[in-house]
């Protein structure tokens, strides 16, 4: 357990670190994908199959592809050299330290005896909860996504030319 966790954690951290430091934008996205897959593997290690596979399906299958497509459409295959350190790196470090401090404080202040027993959340249970208890939020989400889809189609539709 711990050995596998350490390997996966190393892969995740290496992937995300590379995503921040590589020079070509496409390389950054591919490295970020490694980090996201490592995160999905960590979820699987915790026994959360649904979250793990959804992580791969959504982040690798949709988000990474979308980002890659956007870059391919706008930049072309030429190399782009960017400076590794952005000009406002002190502010970045400050924000990162603040987030880390809050998270560390939250973890520290959690009583140690409340180590959660691993919940046995199967896909069946998640599906039942979504369809019974959380059906209204699910429907609202569906409506929102449908509206977004229709909006995207309307934006992409060719405009009718006015007869002159």
């Amino acid at each position, binding site marked *: 357990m711990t050995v596998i966790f350490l390997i996966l954690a190393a892969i995740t951290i290496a992937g995300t670190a590379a995503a921040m430091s590589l020079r070509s934008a496409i390389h950054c996205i591919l490295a970020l994908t490694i980090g996201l897959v490592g995160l999905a593997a960590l979820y699987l290690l915790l026994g959360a199959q649904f979250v793990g596979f959804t992580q791969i399906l959504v982040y690798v299958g*949709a988000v990474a592809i979308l980002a890659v497509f956007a870059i391919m459409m706008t930049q072309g*295959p030429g190399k782009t050299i960017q400076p590794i350190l952005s000009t406002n790196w002190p502010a970045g470090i400050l924000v990162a330290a603040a987030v880390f401090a809050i998270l560390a404080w939250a973890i520290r202040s959690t009583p140690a005896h409340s180590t959660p027993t691993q919940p046995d959340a199967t896909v069946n249970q998640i599906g039942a909860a979504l369809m019974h208890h959380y059906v209204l939020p699910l429907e609202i989400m569906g409506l929102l996504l449908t509206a977004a889809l229709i909006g995207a189609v309307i934006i992409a539709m060719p405009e009718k030319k006015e007869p002159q």
Partner: protein
Amino acid sequence: MTPDTIDQIFVITKHWLLGYVPSALQPIVSAILSVVPILVLFPLLFAITTVLERKGLGRIQNRYGPNRVGPYGFSQPIADGIKSLTKEDVIPRSADQVVHFLAPLLLVLAAFLGYAILPIGRNMVITNLNAGLLYFFAIGSMVELAVFMAGWSSRSKYSLLGAMRAVAQMISYEIPLVLASVVIIMATGSLSTVAIVEQQAHYTYSLPHWFVFTPWGFAGFLAFMVAATAESNRSPFDLPEGESEIIAGYYIEYSGFKFALFFLGEYLGMFATSGLAITLFLGGWSAPFSFLTWVPSYLWFFAKLLVLICIFIWIRGTLPRLRQDQLMNLAWKFMLPMTLINIFTAALWHFMPAGILRWLACTALLVIPCIALSRGLKQGKKLQVRTYRFAE
């Protein structure tokens, strides 16, 4: 030996072998014993399929096909393998070396990972995942990334065009693919492939309870197969690698063994999706008649797989390639609404009492929208039969 022993012979052999291994090593050895046959069997099937496909296409196109190497040309895959191993591996100078190297590996890896949840026989599955179907579709999305990596890293206009076409096509057809399999999840109430097959392995009057023998199952099967053809970039959806337009698409800059790996990955993906179609709609490893259950279950799986492969070859030899706009129109304007209607039909089937009325209502609910939709899409287009003139 009883039929049951022959059916379970591989499972029994594996347990017998595991008995000789110390218990600390048993999980690893068990995994290896399950994975290695898959790694051997399906590439072998790929080799057989290439020669079958070339001979079949030759028949359809009124020529011989390969007939020089070995008896009836059936040793052609060996010659092809040696050829691709000994060829020079050319990498374009401006290519992105690392990504160019990783793309074929990722493609083959993703293609192989799909087999982890396919039950190829009774008690013969690598892992019975609780979320098996979700796993399969998640792995399938990694193929798109591999295809993009191949096309982008080659730094060639043709390969970039091919990658863009391939990714657009795969994203579009993933939606009907998933929606077509949703009806099975509704019917069985499970995402586990093993449970799905077991629910179909029952018989009434010696006829099986396969999902393809229901109106929604049949429509779902057709939609699934069309989407699977598009997902595996096969004709008539082979625009990403259309030879007459963009030469070989995203793998144009690959040579030697890497090219063979792309070929392998593509066929492995096709086998895996066909295997999933068999698992979902055609009853997996179950026999087509109750009096044939003595035939080992794995033989049924591979028999069904070979039939589907033959249909793929037949379609490839018969249909011309689609145009890009026709491809997208088919996915978004026809298959997406039809699969949504199919989900509704499956729900209706579930709540209506069994009988002839249920059959009539569900069939009508599928056939009438199908005809209406095709009529509607045809309007405003001047379609006519193209006449060809051949040399006499």
